[in-house]
């Protein structure tokens, strides 16, 4: 098992390097001059030259690449063009809000999605299943930022139950600010995870060991939650990884809707303000998050499935 984890960890290193390389290529080689992007189309030639000099854009590409890799691997992301703040500092101060939102939404999504999926599977082709199907179709079609905006209008603007913007100070206030954004992302997770649970559980319930569990005298609840669901978790954990990442990407829009600080808002604001160092760092951080989450999910898989452990 330790060897398996080590292999996975080692495997993540080239993936991360590849991701960084792709980010570099996207930022420097794709059409679109970073200097023009940062300064705007009407920029003075002197300003552009100055910008290129400052960010080493006149160096040969391989040297730029080496500098880029060195900076990223030492977490040296430079300073904001707008405020002059260290980008690393900005990232750290925003990270907590995004992590808090993502974790809350994923947890809510799991707590809602798995029981709903179980309910749909156990009532296959009956009313609760049909109801769930409509819900999950809607969950796929409604964009998260729209759902968030509607919740904001109804519960914050009209009813005044929740704050309209910000992330709050102190635990209780932060939780209060977290409710609507987390719920927005969670509702769509519920639909997605519920559908996955339903499919996986229906498949598992038809297998022989479920019959064995019943033959032992296990009651239905035990059969479903101890035997079937645990096996259904194997395909579910793959979906969960995807779900965490789509929650993370959804948080970008939701942070904007609820005017909440966070990595997504930082990145999007930087893009519109053409704050090049922040954009570059933000892209790297999100890309790194993908690698890290996938790695974590592989480790979760090891815990759930003993068959991987021994290999």
């Amino acid at each position, binding site marked *: 098992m330790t060897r398996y984890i080590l292999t996975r960890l080692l495997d993540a290193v080239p*993936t991360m390097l*590849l*991701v960084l390389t*792709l*980010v570099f290529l*996207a*930022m420097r080689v*794709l*059409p*679109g001059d970073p200097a023009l*992007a940062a300064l705007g189309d009407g920029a003075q030639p002197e300003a552009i030259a100055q910008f290129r000099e400052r960010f080493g854009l006149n160096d040969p590409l391989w040297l730029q690449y080496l500098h880029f890799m060195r900076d990223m691997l030492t977490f040296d992301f430079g300073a904001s063009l707008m405020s002059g703040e260290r980008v690393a500092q900005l990232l750290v101060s925003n990270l907590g809000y995004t992590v808090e939102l993502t974790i809350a939404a994923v947890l809510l999504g799991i707590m809602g999605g798995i029981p709903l999926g179980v309910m749909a599977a156990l009532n296959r082709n009956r009313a609760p299943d049909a109801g769930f199907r409509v819900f999950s*179709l*809607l969950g*796929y*079609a*409604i*964009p*998260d*930022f*729209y*759902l968030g*905006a*509607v919740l*904001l*209008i109804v519960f914050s*603007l009209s009813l005044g139950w929740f704050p309209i913007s910000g992330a709050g100070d102190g635990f209780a206030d932060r939780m209060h600010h977290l409710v609507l954004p987390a719920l927005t992302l969670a509702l769509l997770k519920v639909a997605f995870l519920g559908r996955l649970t339903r499919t996986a559980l229906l498949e598992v319930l038809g297998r022989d060991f479920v019959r064995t569990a019943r033959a032992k005298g296990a009651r239905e609840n035990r059969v479903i939650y101890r035997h079937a669901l645990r096996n259904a978790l194997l395909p579910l954990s793959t979906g969960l990884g*995807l779900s965490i*990442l*789509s929650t*993370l*990407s*959804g948080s*970008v*829009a939701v942070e*904007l*809707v609820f005017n909440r600080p966070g990595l997504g808002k930082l*990145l*999007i604001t930087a*893009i*519109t303000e053409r704050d090049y160092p922040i*954009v570059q760092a*933000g*892209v790297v951080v*999100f*890309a790194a998050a*993908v*690698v890290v989450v*996938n790695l974590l999910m592989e480790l979760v898989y090891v815990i759930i499935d003993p068959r991987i452990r021994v290999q």
Partner: protein
Amino acid sequence: MANSEAIPLPEAPRLRRLAGEVVAGRPAVIISLATVLVFAVIAILAPWIAPRDPMAQSFIAINAMPSSDYLLGTDQFGRDLLSRLIYGSRNSLIFGLLSPVFAAIAGTFLGVTAGYFGGWIDRVVTRIIDMLLAFPELLLAILVAAALGGGFWNVVAVLTIAFTPGFARVARASTLAVKQEPYIEAAIASGVSTPVIIFRHVVPNISAPIVVLMTLWSASAIRLEATLSFLGIGTQPPAPSWGNIIREGLGNMFATPWPILTGGLAITIVVLAISTIGDAVRDALDPEIK
């Protein structure tokens, strides 16, 4: 050569039967098709059916509530919301149509190349595809948009890049399967050139899953374009798109909720309709792909 001429290709009757299967006995699919058709007509006829110029500002009718003058009211610049929604449908549908097609072409090219030739090409392509597939489409799109910036062709490029890995994976897997078929071996043995084999025999035979994905993902593309426009990195104002109507509506929500409500509803309805059609196409064409 005669040998390869005799190889059956997907024929027209099959497509017609397929269309029948997609619709058969499913009122939801018929309603969805009608919905998409209505939106398509609206998008095409926008200049003739929009009551006003979607960009025309009016200082005497700022944030007007729905009335007989402005059926859905106006925004903070006094622009007619209904007209903006009608013109906005053009953006949504064109992106929903264009980007899956481009992504399908790019993805099929990559996937077939990797699958047919194998070797190091396959290893490199597969590795990159696998890595990109780890990214949710939205995240990939945001990251590429961060590098490219907004504007029509950039958005097309962003969406295309976001969907290409998925097409490439399916195309590669299907190519590997088709390559095992005896008629490919027969074609190779009878000296048919590689490009002919690929375009006459491989590509037509992997078209089914690609078509399914194109339908399913045009819904995703519409939602994705809306999200990017909402984030301010898609369609740039003042040009209307459903996403940026909601974006501007959010800044103005204290005055009127209508832009948010109607813009979001339009996205939801179209995405719902297209994904219903996509599911039906999938069920009829290939029950195996999910």
